[in-house]
């Protein structure tokens, strides 16, 4: 364990020298967190990749479907769900590397969330949260009875589903949770003039990570399940340096958070505006770019 921890701190220190850091954290890196982060990127069309969080080259997953987005690893990391926008479009579920995937839903949701027992998935579809049993039984629209325009579900180990609600063309959106049977709707985050989006439950279901800000300038925050104790993890966007941080995903230990960052990445004299997969300790501090050395960057991480 010490070896892994030392390696992690050395890598984080190197990233600090290259990319600049707010401060140095000493968060421990635990063995379960070493499992690869899965994300999507453009490489001759949309494709799925995995990258080891301790450092190493991203690897493209060999998946027969095409136009692949929104990967979601199951809680134990043994299965992978994703959306294919190809000819046989829909939601697919397969092994952790994407192999053997079979279509479980026809349609294109905005996000996929696994139930804690891995028997169902929740999807954001046309402003509703739809629960899809993987045994082929009937789907359930759990937001049908509440006044929300729901998207981007995340399913907690305590059987609550977080989602964001944004009316069409509104520039603000709120973050809600609801019991997985569709009861007990609660407003968790509402900030006037800003979007709260992309909620993600911590593995123990006690906190939520989410993005907050206007489109084009958002940061990652965490908050208690009841909406209290809101903490900022990534800095205020700054012109030229600033970034749009979205789509947080917790490490299995709950000690780290991966997210996607849109930013101006410079190498020597050349800079490009792109998306990368970043990670930061849940206490904040060093932000490490996991995909900086790779031409395709990345978005939509799942850990």
């Amino acid at each position, binding site marked *: 364990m010490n070896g892994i921890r030392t390696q992690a701190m050395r890598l984080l220190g190197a990233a600090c020298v290259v990319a*600049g850091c707010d401060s140095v954290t000493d968060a421990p890196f635990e063995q379960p967190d070493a499992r690869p982060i899965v994300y999507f990127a453009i490489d001759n069309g949309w494709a799925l990749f995995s990258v080891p969080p301790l450092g190493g080259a991203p690897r493209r997953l060999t998946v027969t479907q095409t136009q692949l987005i929104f990967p979601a690893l199951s809680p134990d990391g043994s299965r992978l769900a994703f959306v294919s926008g190809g000819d046989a479009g829909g939601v697919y579920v397969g092994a952790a590397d994407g192999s053997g995937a079979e279509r479980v839903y026809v349609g294109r949701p905005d996000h996929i969330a696994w139930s804690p027992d891995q028997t169902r998935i929740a999807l954001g579809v046309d402003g509703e949260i739809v629960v899809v049993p993987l045994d082929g039984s009937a789907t359930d629209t759990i937001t049908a009875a509440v006044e929300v325009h729901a998207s981007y579900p995340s399913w907690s180990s305590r059987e609550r589903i977080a989602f964001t609600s944004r009316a*069409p*063309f*509104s*520039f603000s959106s709120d973050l809600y949770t609801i019991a997985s049977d569709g009861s007990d709707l609660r407003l968790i985050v509402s900030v006037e*003039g800003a979007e709260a989006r992309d909620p993600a439950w911590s593995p123990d279901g006690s906190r939520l990570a989410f993005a907050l800000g*206007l*489109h*084009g*300038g958002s940061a990652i925050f965490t908050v208690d399940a009841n909406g209290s104790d809101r903490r900022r993890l990534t800095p205020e966007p*700054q*012109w*030229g*340096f*600033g970034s*749009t941080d979205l789509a947080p995903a917790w490490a299995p230990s709950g000690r780290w958070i991966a997210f996607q960052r*849109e930013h*101006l990445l*410079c190498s*020597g*004299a*050349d*800079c*490009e*505006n792109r998306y990368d997969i970043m990670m930061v300790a849940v206490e904040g501090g060093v932000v490490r770019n996991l995909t900086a050395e790779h031409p395709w960057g990345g978005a939509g991480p799942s850990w």
Partner: protein
Amino acid sequence: MTLNGVWGARIKLVTDADSLTLALGEQDGQIRGFAVLRHSIGAPEAATYYSVSGSRTDRFVEIHLGATIGNPSPPMAVRAALTWGLLAGTTDLSGVAQPIEFRRSARANDGVAGTWALTSTTGTPLAIRDTIVVLADGRGRRHREEPYYGFGTLAIWTRNADWLVLRQFAFVSDIPSRDSVRVEANALVRTTRLFDGTTVTETYQRVQ
């Protein structure tokens, strides 16, 4: 004195009337942004875009311009000192050192500075989200999200009568280099005529 803002200089490329505009952000001694090299001959919109990275130590600034689109151009560097509000030094454009003096570009604010978000669309909606950030120092940002397309870009803005003109850092070819919205009492308005002859009006409200 911060470098944050928009800086303009004359530069001798084809004629003495060519110009180089820098839009700079500064943080912890690092500089990021973009540059627009405008040629005095050719089409009015003929311009080369560069990404900008660099560093600052006290009043001394070193800026590298690279990764061009538009008219192919070699990378170049600017080494200058910030003195009395001027950024004066040399550039090695075309491999020949020449003096260059940047002045901060003034902007008539007219109350247009702020953050504007797309709040309504008439006709068929084109975008899901669109945010225009107008900073008082002449810099801007633009983020637009459409159902199957989107972009985020740094920008420079100017006023032309009732119009707010954004010159966007078109670092890839599918990002428009210019955009214009009409400034109304409490809104920015863009009208787009589609190929089928219909018109879409997008309205932005100030949110910050």
